[in-house]
């Protein structure tokens, strides 16, 4: 595989370590690629199993209120500001997600309810692993579904084609295709005091270590460092996420927006958020979950504000490993459940509606008598996004052992 960096090296255009600025080269390359409109998929993973039923609330179900005596969100209009924000007469958003309402009204936010995995596990670890590998029930899978998508769609056009805003590379992006993890665009680089010789030394060592798993990582790191020099980092300070907590969802999404606006060839981006495992004192319209959701909703809304017209080419999907029990537990919280909810935002989305077949909350309708059933396999949702938004032609490699039949797509994208 010839990466751009190797190409530049061989063609005698190599820039040394921290020496000459390669920005022009990268920009020129990006401009050439940018002739066709580049579509981007942003995956937001809520680690910890977010409580679907208090995020997109089935307020039209009596069973919801019966099962959640203390943590249910009040029916629309009945309890003023503390009530569900109605979407379609049956479902509504948690009031802390108020920043997302304009996107819903614009038709740029869709909901897929009762989405999840066919695997019955209620283990965070296994369920996240299956969600990210894209192979429920199969632990031996080595790479992640996003990486397999990149592999299937051909060689990397940009060293920043796949980016995770995280201190470690998420499982979804593990695999043969290059993928970069960074916590901060600004800080992603070698210490300037080290000088070019040290940078060159590291680069050469990792380039030569061809048998080491770190070889590819080293190469990807140095290529990404070069590419990032094309970003006007001063703009980052003023982004919508400025002032947001370090490592937060908002900070991550702000940086993704900057990368997208700089047109550096990002095709997939990954951001994660934790703290969704509310076994106790989850709260209702206010409280712990509400606080998480306030940050979640405002970060997503700010992301689209920040992107402006570029947002038409960007789809965000939010995922979590499973849902939580329909019934609240003994501590005003919820335990590990099954079916969950995904939000899909962006251009081309058939927004303003709740997709997926709603299985109901009646006793006979629940999974194992306690949890929301799964009616949309998460692979059908992701398969639809890859096909209809990213232009993927073949999903067999991305989701092996799953027949991705467009008939089963939830229909969240305009065909």
């Amino acid at each position, binding site marked *: 595989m010839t990466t751009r960096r190797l190409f530049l090296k061989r063609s005698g255009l190599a820039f040394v370590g921290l020496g000459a600025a390669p920005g022009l080269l990268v920009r020129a390359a990006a401009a050439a690629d940018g002739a066709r409109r580049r579509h981007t998929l942003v995956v937001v993973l809520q680690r910890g199993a977010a409580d679907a039923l208090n995020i997109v609330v089935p307020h039209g179900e009596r069973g919801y209120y019966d099962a959640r005596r203390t943590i249910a969100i009040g029916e629309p209009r009945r309890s003023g500001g503390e009530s569900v924000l109605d979407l379609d007469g049956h479902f509504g958003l948690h009031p802390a997600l108020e920043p997302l309402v304009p996107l819903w009204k614009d038709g740029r936010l869709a909901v897929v309810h009762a989405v999840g995995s066919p695997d019955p596990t209620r283990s965070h670890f296994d369920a996240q692993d299956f969600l990210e590998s894209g192979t429920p029930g199969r632990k031996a899978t080595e790479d992640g579904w996003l990486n397999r998508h990149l592999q299937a769609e051909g060689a990397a056009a940009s060293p920043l084609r796949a980016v*995770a805003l995280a201190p470690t590379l998420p499982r979804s992006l593990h695999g043969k295709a290059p993928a970069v993890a960074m916590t901060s665009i600004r800080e992603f680089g070698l210490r300037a005091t080290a000088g070019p*010789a040290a940078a060159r*030394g*590291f680069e050469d060592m990792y380039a030569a*270590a061809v048998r080491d798993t770190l*070889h590819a990582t080293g190469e990807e790191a140095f290529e990404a460092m070069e590419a990032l020099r094309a970003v006007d980092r001063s703009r980052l300070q003023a982004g919508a996420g400025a002032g947001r907590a370090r490592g937060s969802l908002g900070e991550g999404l702000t940086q993704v927006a900057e990368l997208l606006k700089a047109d550096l060839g990002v095709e997939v981006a990954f951001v994660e958020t934790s703290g969704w495992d509310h076994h106790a004192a989850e709260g209702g319209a206010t409280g712990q979950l509400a606080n998480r959701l306030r940050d979640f909703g405002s970060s997503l809304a700010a992301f689209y504000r920040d992107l402006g017209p570029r947002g038409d080419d960007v789809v965000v999907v939010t995922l979590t490993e499973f849902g939580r029990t329909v019934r609240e537990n003994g501590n005003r919280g919820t335990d590990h459940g099954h079916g969950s909810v995904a939000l899909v935002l962006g251009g081309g989305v058939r927004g303003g509606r709740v997709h997926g077949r709603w299985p109901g909350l009646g006793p006979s309708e629940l999974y194992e008598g306690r949890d929301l059933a799964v009616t949309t396999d998460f692979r059908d949702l992701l398969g639809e996004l890859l096909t209809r938004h990213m232009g993927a032609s073949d999903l067999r490699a991305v989701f092996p052992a799953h027949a991705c039949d467009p008939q089963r797509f939830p229909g969240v994208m305009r065909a």
Partner: protein
Amino acid sequence: MRRLGLALALLVVPGGLWGGARPAPDDATIVHVLNRLTWGPRASDLEAVRGMGLERWLDRQLHPERIDDSAVEKRLATLETHGLSSGELLKGYELPRAAKREIQKRRAELDESASEMDRRRARRELVSKYGPQMQGSPRQVIGELQEAKLLRATLSERQLDDVLVDFWLNHFNVYAQKGPVRFLVADHERAIREHAWGRFEDLLVATAKSPAMLFYLDNWLSVDPAAAARIKERAQRFGPRLTRRGDATPEEMREALSRRSGLNENYARELLELHTLGVEGGYTQKDVTEVARAFTGWTIRGLRQDAPVFTFDPRLHDTGDKLVLGRTVEAAGESEGREILKHLAASPATARFISWKLARRLVADEPPSALVDRAAATFERTGGEIREVVRTIVTAPEFLAPEVRQAKLKTPLEFVVSAVRASGASVVRARELSKRVADMGMRLYLQQPPTGYKDTADAWVSTSGLVARLNFALDLSAGRIPGIELPASAFAAASGEALADAVAARLLPSGLSPATRATLEAEAKAELTPARVAGLVLGSPEFQRR
């Protein structure tokens, strides 16, 4: 060549290198053992082990109580909060109740749109207002826990003990930022240290009763639904007896308490999945629920009075029989939980899961199954004697096999500590080290999921982590890490090619690959300073492995 020699030795010596009469192990073997059973070799370690003999060294490490460790204890004693009990920490470092009430008030005043930053700022103002009444801040408690961990790893002579305690602390992970857990972690860690080398069942019981664990996995709140009505009535009469601290507001605490109306299966599930049987250990959702019923009443007393201890409260307990893993556990109060822990500790699934996990830490990401089998057999034969299981693993031929050498990628903690140990630097303050470990993706004591940190290469191979490692290597060797002092002679002597070899021999006794060595030679010719060459060695692919 060395590898060939070793392979031959394995062939000709019955029982492998560690049993019976045999030639002295070569240096590569000693370095490998040091790489696995310590936080990384110091410059003087190789010679020390040569002198004492590898077996004697290993035997000492397997009996840490025989090793004098007063030097590190003296260093730890300089940390204000070190050695304090949970109660003392709560008394001196938790916000006073008046401060909490004011926080509550301020929070209510803050507009809904106030950012996390605004909230934090308000919190800081209050800390400065109430600070004088306190011995230190809640933040200091976590900061010093992290520092203590780095000091011990770097300086302790009981290296294998510290590696093993780290393993168990990760196995029985708690998250210091949940409620008052930061004040309870030190006692949790002490309990683990006490039982780290003993019987697994004792360790399991100690963690089951650890207030940190009871809080972290919510078992302190789990009650029999029938008992709940009584509690609620009492709570209304007397107000909540216990107080949650930290992230949750007093309203949420009160809510949680007055609403202790039933089961919480958080601990029960992780007990089966993560602490004992493993996720494939053959339990069902029904088992999880039954175990949760048996552990109702296992709770914390005295949290509000700054004296938190485990207690069994029979009033909260589900008094019916339980059916766990096909066995009936007859109603018997606290001893039901004890019986379940005993049964779990004795399960072959547990023996295998624990042995596999230990072998993964000490040998390879995918440890040889024959080795895991033998370790599990030791576990079962000895009734879960951890020392014997560890001994089985580290004296196995597989432990020394060529294919497992340098096979483990260092975690951020392992990388940072091993670099400091190799450099011979003295640690004046460890705070910056813990920040650097966090930059690499490992926030000590702050791993939220109960699975703990991952221990396999795939979790730690990333561009972000690598760049942070390279920068640490450069900063450490340039003497730019605050609190870390390099000896004047750190990388002195030699020049040119000899320089690269001299520095590498000192820092990386397991050796450089020819490719890395060639790069270093080339760069050394480019008139890099010894410190810069040292930075390259510490950032090399080889130094990321152990």
